């Protein structure tokens, strides 16, 4: 076959010609448009497990709405930064997006009317969804009476423990009811195994570098950093008392490990669990999924109970982590996006599928009667873990959202570390922290009002 043109006579020589041809071919690939359909919905995700779930289930939605093409994009950990940039520049944001609970605060800064998400309250109320979901679960996604997302999950927390090793220490964990009971049990189980004078086995691992576990306890008692009206309440008596209790687990009672790993998901944390050096951990539902994938060899060794209560009969759970899905104001067809939201979050078959892969309990109460939640969980030696989570779910504490959460959490980390390492008393640490955050907020408010006055003045 003859090539229809003369390669040798290409003005710039063979090399550049080959480059030109490759360039043109790749342009074709880049240009090839996605399947042409009537409507496009772009859906951004940051979690791999969610992405896999939607990849499998979105074709069903597209069958229901044949004119719609859903484009799923998983940006992983950098998604929130990309979303922030897109919302700031008023260009390039997706129609639908999932946002993580510790990241949503920054999106609520400034004038409430400028928030980049569509308020879903009227849709939720008019279609009766508020009553069908655990209502406290809307608090992380609400601010100033508006609801910017629907909850993906509940993330109730249980106490996961090594039944065999507590039994070996003479403790029946089933009988634990309060934190005082736990301290007594913990003292028996925290031991120096090899007789070298150093403790090797600790009753519990708690994060002393970040707010996570302290905040777990604080929420369990009904406290928080901010209250429902956005006031700073981290220096309340309940918060101080909880931090005093938290530090006592390290210092006075010495049942929380200061040496093995320091945060959940820390690889050395898993190693110590496997070696039987850490006997319990406060675990939300999703964390059980992580344990299963990270330390599958520990199958059958764990058991779970509700968190020890502060008083007999009081709340035995808290909530840790979370995701919402929302519609951005850049979305051209919010009605269609709303249908996608409901399909992803309120479809019972999908929610059961989600539990199978990730162990995440849905906030939709109607889904809880599915038999799958009652099935024995082999990772927990046959205990039906889903059942325990569902029993605890209605008692989930609210977790009020605030635009200053990121700054507050960053400073709270320092306060907790200073209190645990006894650089400051819990009271000093939290009073000082509350003052800092109040000053920060007041300063912004002052600047903003002054700025507006100046703008008005120049008009």
């Amino acid at each position, binding site marked *: 076959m003859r090539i229809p043109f003369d390669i040798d006579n290409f003005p710039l020589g063979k090399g550049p010609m080959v480059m030109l041809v490759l360039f043109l071919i790749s342009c074709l690939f880049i240009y090839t448009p996605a399947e042409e359909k009537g409507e496009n919905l772009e859906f951004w995700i940051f979690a791999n497990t969610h992405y896999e779930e939607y990849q499998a289930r979105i074709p069903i939605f597209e069958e229901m709405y044949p004119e719609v093409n859903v484009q799923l994009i998983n940006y992983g950990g950098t998604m*929130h*930064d990309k979303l*922030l940039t897109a*919302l*700031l520049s*008023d260009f390039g944001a997706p129609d639908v997006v999932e946002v993580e609970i510790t*990241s949503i605060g*920054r*999106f609520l*800064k*400034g*004038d409430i009317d*400028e*928030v*980049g998400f569509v308020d879903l309250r009227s849709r939720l109320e008019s279609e009766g969804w508020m009553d069908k979901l655990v209502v406290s679960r809307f608090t992380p996604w609400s601010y100033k009476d508006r609801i910017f997302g629907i909850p993906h999950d509940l993330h109730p927390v249980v106490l996961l423990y090594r039944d065999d090793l507590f039994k070996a220490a003479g403790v029946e964990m089933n009988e634990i009811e309060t934190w005082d009971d736990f301290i007594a049990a913990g003292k028996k189980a925290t031991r120096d195994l090899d007789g070298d004078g150093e403790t*090797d086995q600790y009753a519990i691992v708690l994060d*002393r*570098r*970040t707010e996570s576990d302290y905040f777990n306890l604080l929420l369990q008692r009904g406290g928080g950093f901010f209250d429902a009206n956005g006031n700073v309440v981290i220096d309340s008596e309940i918060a101080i008392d909880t931090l005093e209790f938290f530090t006592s687990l390290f210092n006075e009672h010495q049942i929380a490990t*200061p*040496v*093995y*790993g*320091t*945060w959940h998901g*820390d*690889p*050395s944390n898993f*190693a*110590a669990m496997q*070696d039987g*050096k850490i006997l319990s951990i406060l675990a939300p539902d999703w964390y059980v999924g992580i344990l299963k994938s990270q330390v599958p060899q520990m199958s059958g060794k764990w058991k779970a109970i509700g968190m020890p209560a502060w008083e007999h009969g009081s709340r035995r759970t808290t909530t840790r982590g979370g995701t919402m899905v929302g519609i951005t104001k850049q979305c051209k067809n919010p009605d269609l996006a709303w249908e996608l939201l409901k399909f992803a979050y309120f479809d019972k078959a999908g929610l059961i599928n989600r539990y199978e892969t990730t162990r995440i309990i849905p906030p939709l109460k109607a889904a809880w009667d599915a038999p799958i939640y009652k099935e024995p969980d082999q990772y927990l030696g046959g205990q039906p873990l889903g059942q325990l989570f569902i029993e605890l779910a209605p008692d989930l504490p609210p977790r009020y959202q605030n*635009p200053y959460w*990121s*700054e507050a959490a*960053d400073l709270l*980390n*320092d306060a907790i*570390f*200073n209190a645990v*390492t006894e650089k400051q008393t819990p009271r000093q640490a939290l009073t000082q922290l509350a003052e800092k955050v109040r000053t920060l907020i007041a300063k*912004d408010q002052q*600047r*903003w009002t*002054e*700025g*507006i006055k*100046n703008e008005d003045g120049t008009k």
Partner: protein
Amino acid sequence: MKTGRNRFSYWHQQQRIAPYLFIAPFYILFIVFMGYPLISSLVMSFYEMRGFQSRIYVGFANFVDLFRDPIFWKSLWNTTYFALGTLILQLPLALFLAILLNSKVVKGRNILRLAFFVPVLVAGVFIAIIFNLIFDQRAGLINNEFLIFGKEIGWLSEEKFVIPAVILTGVWQWAGFNMIFFLAGLQGIRQELYEAAAVDGANWWQSFIHITLPSLRPVIAFVFVVSMIGSFQLFDLPFILTNGGEPADAGSTIVMYLYKNGFQFMRLGYAATIGWVLFIIIAIISIAQLKLLGIFQEE
């Protein structure tokens, strides 16, 4: 000889315009992707965001706040500490490795060169995870194998050990990379110089001081300046290794603090201010280094 008519002819015009057209792509890209963001970030440092659509002019308030911000000073000190550690530990080690692996005495040089170079190819995230295990207080390799102070060190849980842990990780990651520059420099030194020195009775140390080091001066200057800039831009390694700068900001660096302010706290004006202050710091240090190493002197 050119005539008046010729001067305005197509070819003449093209000759005049062509050079500008050839260099235009660079300037267009530079203005769009560097010039504009630079100027607008400078402007931004005099504003603060008020929500997503509006911003407020604050004058020098961001700069004043920054100089009163204890976390900024802590981050600046941590970053400087890391940079000094790099200067004192990493670069001499890289030079030592380069001399060792340049010597014909050492067997398997190629494999060793590769082995020392490989860590730089590993993503920072993985390095952070591996070193998290290595630095573990009870079960970690370092505390188990080298009880340096006769007791367990909380590398990542005690404030004073956090930056040393990051420095050690940095040494592991970057020493081999810097070694390659020194190695290239060493191979560029003429052998006759050593032979002549040997004839004159110079020992190894004298040759090193009087031939190797002076000949390596441009390479040393390059590696020092690039390492310093890299050190002051340190971000991903401590971000993951210390879980975002914990405990108590002991692992916080300037770029980490910039990132947190810009993206986590949505304080873009403040973040831009940190960026410009960092730029000034890096510029001063780089110029000082180049001066000290005599790069601006005429040979």
